[in-house]
């Protein structure tokens, strides 16, 4: 049925291309290019995790770096404090992030509009400060990884970035497949219904508090997994690295740039923003501080004013335009 299959081929194509990307000889082979690709996939995944709640369900949270951070600390603690592999830590971190998200959002969802937004800012700042003084998790110094055996078991590599790329790819496939599955399921329709009109949704039998909490828990779970990957990639973590308003805003802005509430928006946003950020930093280094963010700031302003549907809106406009042209020709 058309309704069910639309976009399925596109998804497979994108997954396929990303799977063979590191095998293509040429400019993508260098370690820096690999690094950029890893970051694109990571931030696309993370933004998608945010998009599930913010885009599909309309609950705009500026607090997602908290869940990202909890996942990062989960993996970090497992490795640094307990000498385990990061896997159980990542899983536990994700579960804890879900629980924390439910505890936080149950009261916060009662708040409307700006009051909700500001509450999520406040929560990030609180978590940031608490982790700064929490001795058990390393306080302000954070956690530094010991040198241990590399490989998939410990999920860390020192020389090559290719396994990280495939790790990020696996994460990406997981998160985007989840999003796609949700998009085509009852819960996905209910999430969008709550976003577009809570009263109307409830009149049709949608338990909107439950839908919002479900979206929140899934979103926080996936965000924490992304955080776990992030710490394995950097081999260290401290509070400002993961739990900050700037980090939260990045997930939001990448999604807005790409297209809020669309499946491929977060990928598009990350594919534009992350290279911009990494290359401007590489070119200007410390001297030209902030050039990427100056451009990004302007880009956000222009997008919000001119194309509220983000780059996806632009893409569908172009596609529509070509289809119309073909129709005439």
């Amino acid at each position, binding site marked *: 049925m058309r309704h069910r299959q639309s976009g399925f081929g596109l998804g497979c194509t994108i997954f396929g291309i990303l799977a063979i990307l590191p095998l293509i000889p040429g400019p993508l082979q260098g370690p820096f290019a690999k690094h950029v690709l890893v970051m694109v996939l990571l931030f696309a995944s993370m933004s998608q995790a945010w998009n599930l709640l913010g885009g599909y369900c309309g609950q705009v949270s500026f607090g997602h770096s908290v869940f990202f951070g909890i996942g990062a600390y989960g993996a970090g603690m497992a490795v640094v404090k307990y000498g385990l592999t990061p896997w159980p830590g990542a899983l536990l971190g994700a579960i804890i992030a879900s629980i924390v998200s439910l505890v936080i959002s149950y009261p916060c969802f009662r708040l409307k509009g700006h009051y909700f937004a500001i509450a999520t800012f406040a929560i990030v700042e609180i978590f940031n400060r608490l982790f700064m003084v929490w001795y058990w998790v390393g306080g302000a110094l954070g956690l530094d990884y010991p040198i241990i055996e590399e490989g998939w078991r410990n999920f860390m590599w020192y020389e090559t970035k290719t396994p990280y790329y495939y790790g990020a790819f696996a994460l990406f496939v997981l998160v985007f497949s989840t999003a796609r599955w949700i998009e085509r399921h009852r819960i996905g329709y209910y999430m969008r219904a709550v976003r577009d009109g809570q*009263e109307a949704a409830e009149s049709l*039998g949608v338990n909107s508090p439950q839908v919002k909490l479900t979206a929140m828990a899934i979103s926080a779970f996936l965000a924490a997994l992304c955080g776990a990957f992030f710490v394995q990639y950097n081999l260290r973590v401290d509070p400002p690295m993961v739990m900050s308003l700037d980090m939260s805003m990045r997930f939001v802005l990448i999604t807005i740039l790409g297209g809020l509430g669309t499946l491929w928006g977060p990928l598009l946003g990350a594919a534009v923003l992350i290279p911009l950020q990494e290359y401007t930093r590489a070119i200007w280094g410390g001297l030209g501080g902030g050039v990427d963010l100056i451009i990004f700031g302007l880009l956000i302003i222009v997008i919000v004013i001119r194309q509220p549907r983000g780059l996806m809106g632009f893409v569908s406009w172009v596609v529509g335009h070509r289809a119309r042209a073909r129709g005439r020709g």
Partner: protein
Amino acid sequence: MALLEVRGLTMKFGSLLANHDISFDVEEGSITGLIGPNGAGKTTLFNCISGAYKPTAGKVLFAGSDITGWPPYRVARLGAVRTFQVVRPLNDMSVFDNVLVGAFLRERDLTSALDVAECSLRFCHLEDYRDKLAGNLTIGLKKRLELARALATQPKLLMLDEVMAGLSGAELKEAMELLKEIKAQGVTLLVVEHVMEALMPIADKVVVLDGGVKIAEGPPREIVESERVIAAYLGEKFSRRLKELKT
């Protein structure tokens, strides 16, 4: 036992008595009309029944359960679904997806929900607009979408709040046929309507509100002849026209 029983329902907004001690029954399989001049308290009554407001006093019984003060989604799950007089389309979703949201109430998986949604879309003659964004429809179509969406939930009791307002003569006839078909499928209807020509010929019973109080209840024939109703609401001219229409 009636499908819906409203008992002594009272709703106050501050000092304003929007509904005062209203009681009536809606029999299973019937069409019950709810009429009254603007501001009589009809929408408020709907809001109390559907759970959007908690009534100040009184009881609402539906299908044997006391649903007073239940949240709207639980009322809907039990089978009493309403539409909104001030339409509330899910603006950024397509017409079809709007209906699909309704269909998911009884159909858990996508395939069967798609079928149900398709059915109610056709039933309400909206299939030409299926891929349009609901926010871009005209007001008349939005009203029809409200109906299609509510129908897709496969309700026991369908509560319509002025879905026929603003329709032209031909459209009105069509809409009346639609309601009769819905009834024929075994759905009970509680219909708030301002357009009485549309309601009188199809209703089994009419409840009349005025100033928040129930002033009459009975078959349409009696209602149009009731002195009190005429005085309060219909006016001579109207009631004569209605009698002509009925014969």
